[in-house]
């Protein structure tokens, strides 16, 4: 056992960690093999290797595939993986599923699922939103009723991605209708491969189908698959949502033809586009181009400052602004791209990629301004949690859920 994996991780020097991970990567990582598929489908064999060598979640305890590293130590590992382009580490930050199970599962449950989730051996989906419970997730009406050693679930979920291929879904359902809304919800690890689960693709305004509606009819879940306390699911959900948020943020999609993520170098693309469209000399559009580029750059600067402040231990109010900022970036860029094209934006199809970009972005910007909490909900959160402004009166907060008004 090397020094870096010694008993007292805090005492392990940064250099020792760097040496160990570098030498392990040198011995094991092979980008060419990955490209050729030698690590199995989706590189799962590689991920398994990373997990078994305890690099997947170094901040976690040793008994759960980790190394008890602090954040700075874990960042060294992540930096070295990133340097050679190897995936699989940092799952203690970004693996929503494994984190949730580790935090809320009992020992037996964790033994069964944590390794499988770290190794991506099972496919997962999220069964949270409902047609009647969007912004107000706690207003959910999918019901779970106890029947012997099982729960029987009936209801409808929506905006679920990956439902068709999922082995399990993380499900919130109402288990007590007499308590106020937040107090009657439980959190389940729901087996998806069973007859009562019907998955229908949901067509988006972009004419894509990345999400599903999921109809649950007498779906059965073993009682052991309850995560966290009975009727204590709201807190589990909050934790899971926090993990999810830390995964997102960089995930917003730009124009259809572009890569994912709002690139910091977006300025070059927009200027090139204006030049190509013969509009770069238009003073009005130049102001708009500068504005949009600035929104992107400012968001990047905000994010960088927030990270720096977090690393210095100062909690930063800026983190929560990113989603709202991204929403504005996407909507404003869509308008700008439309104005650069003028009548060209009437068209769509792959023969007109610039028009398709502008039109796709116009529609898909709503994915960010609505999905994962609308801009309006986001402003509430910033106003209340960051600025400390008081909440609105909540008319349904202390009412038995059975009597709460619904659409």
């Amino acid at each position: 056992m090397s020094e870096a994996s010694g008993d007292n991780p805090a005492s392990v020097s940064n250099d020792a960690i760097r040496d160990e991970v570098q030498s392990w990567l040198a011995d094991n990582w092979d980008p060419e093999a990955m490209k050729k598929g030698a690590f199995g489908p989706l590189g799962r064999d590689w991920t398994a290797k990373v997990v078994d060598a305890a690099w997947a979640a170094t901040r976690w305890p040793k008994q759960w595939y980790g190394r008890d590293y602090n954040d700075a130590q874990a960042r060294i590992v992540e930096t070295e993986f990133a340097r050679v382009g190897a995936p699989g580490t940092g799952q203690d930050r970004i693996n929503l599923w494994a984190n949730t199970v580790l935090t809320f599962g009992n020992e037996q449950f964790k033994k069964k699922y944590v390794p499988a989730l770290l190794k991506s051996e099972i496919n997962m989906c999220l069964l949270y939103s409902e047609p009647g419970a969007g912004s107000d997730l706690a207003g959910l009406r999918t019901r779970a009723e106890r029947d012997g050693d099982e729960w029987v679930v009936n209801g409808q979920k929506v905006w679920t991605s990956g439902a068709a291929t999922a082995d399990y879904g993380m499900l919130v359902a109402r288990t007590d209708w007499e308590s106020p809304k937040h107090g009657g919800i439980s959190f389940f690890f729901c087996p998806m491969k069973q007859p009562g689960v019907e998955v229908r693709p949901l067509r988006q305004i972009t004419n894509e189908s990345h999400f599903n509606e999921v109809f649950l009819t007498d779906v059965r879940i073993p009682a052991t698959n309850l995560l966290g306390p009975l009727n204590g699911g709201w807190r589990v959900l909050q934790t899971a949502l926090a993990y999810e948020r830390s995964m997102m943020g960089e995930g917003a999609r730009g124009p259809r033809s572009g890569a994912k993520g709002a690139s910091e170098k977006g300025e070059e693309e927009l200027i090139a586009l204006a030049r190509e469209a013969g509009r770069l000399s238009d003073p009005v559009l130049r102001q708009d181009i500068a504005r949009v580029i600035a929104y992107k750059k400012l968001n990047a600067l905000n994010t960088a400052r927030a990270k720096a402040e977090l690393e210095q231990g100062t909690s930063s109010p800026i983190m929560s602004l990113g989603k709202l900022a991204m929403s504005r970036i996407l909507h404003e860029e869509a308008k700008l791209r439309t104005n650069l094209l003028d009548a060209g934006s009437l068209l769509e199809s792959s023969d007109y990629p610039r028009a398709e970009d502008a039109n796709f972005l116009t529609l898909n910007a709503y994915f960010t301004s609505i999905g994962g909490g609308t801009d309006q909900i986001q402003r509430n959160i910033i106003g209340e949690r960051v600025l400390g402004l008081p909440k609105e009166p909540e008319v349904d907060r202390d009412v038995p859920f059975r009597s709460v008004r619904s659409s």
Partner: protein
Amino acid sequence: MPELDDSERNELQNTVARLLADRSSESDVRKTMETETGFDPALWQLLAEMGIVGLLIDEQFGGYGAGAMEIERVMEEVGAALLCSPLLASAVLAASVLGASGDDDAQRRLLPDMAKGTSIATIALTGTEGSWTPEGVAVRAESNGTDWTLSGTASFVIHGQNADVVLVVANTEQGTALFQVEPSELGTAIRALPTFDHTLRLAEIEFAATKAQLIGEDGNGWPAVEQGLNLTRVALAGEQAGGARRVLDMTVEYAKNRVQFGRAIGSFQAIKHMAADLLLESESATSAARHAAMSLASTSDDAEPAISLAGFACADAFSAVTAASIQMHGGIGFTWEHPAHLYLRRARADAQLFGTPMFYRERYIQQLGG
């Protein structure tokens, strides 16, 4: 048709509204927009029988001789119902350009069938840059003394693929002139364009020494085109105002009924205040469209700026209302099955046809002497 008064115009508008409520429901629109021609011939015939298709055509040619104020009201309902049809292309743009062309022969030959709806007309006017100005004309006409041929590309030809009367604006040595081309001369040179607004049909036409017939006077074609464009811009402003109003109504209705956190979402200021601001946009659009129609009908000095004002105010209002509507609907507004995006697509198309808001604002300040 004797000149209508305002209550008769209300009645005309209500009649159209009732027809479209019946025959251009959301499901009708979804069905029609996915057909190849993009319009419902039976409904088109009904509109012709009601006199809507011939509304702007002179009585001597089988039309009703109505004007800007009447078509504006009709178009409010067209926008509200997202009607899929060649109304704007044939019954408004082509009919009014022909009506202004001063070419009695062409009018006699073409207008009666257009009024009856048995013939569908369109005008090829702008090139691939999409500028509905004299500078935007990209087709060149040449004459050997007796016969004319056209060369060049015309794009964004509304319902071009469905037209049996194709009028073309082209540059000649004398200036601008209007021509007619037989569809049989075009063949594959006429190509349907894929549109982001599925309720719209556009085509591109490549002319290569294509035979054409002159309409009106050589070199003096633009004034008739401009006259027709102005009427069409007023009609389109009406469509935008009507569309904005309908989308706002739909959104307010949803906000009254959709409950989250135990309250209708319309009780939250975030939604309520957006709706109030949108009402201002929507009402301003209606005022602008109707004022433009009245100014044009009364051939007031004010007509040109009034049309430009409507050009950007109505486009901006329809865009703003449809954009906010999706946001206010939340998740359901992001689904294909909800009509919000259909209106957004129409609003985007309407904001381009015949001029963008930026174009109209620049034109407006010029017309005001700036």
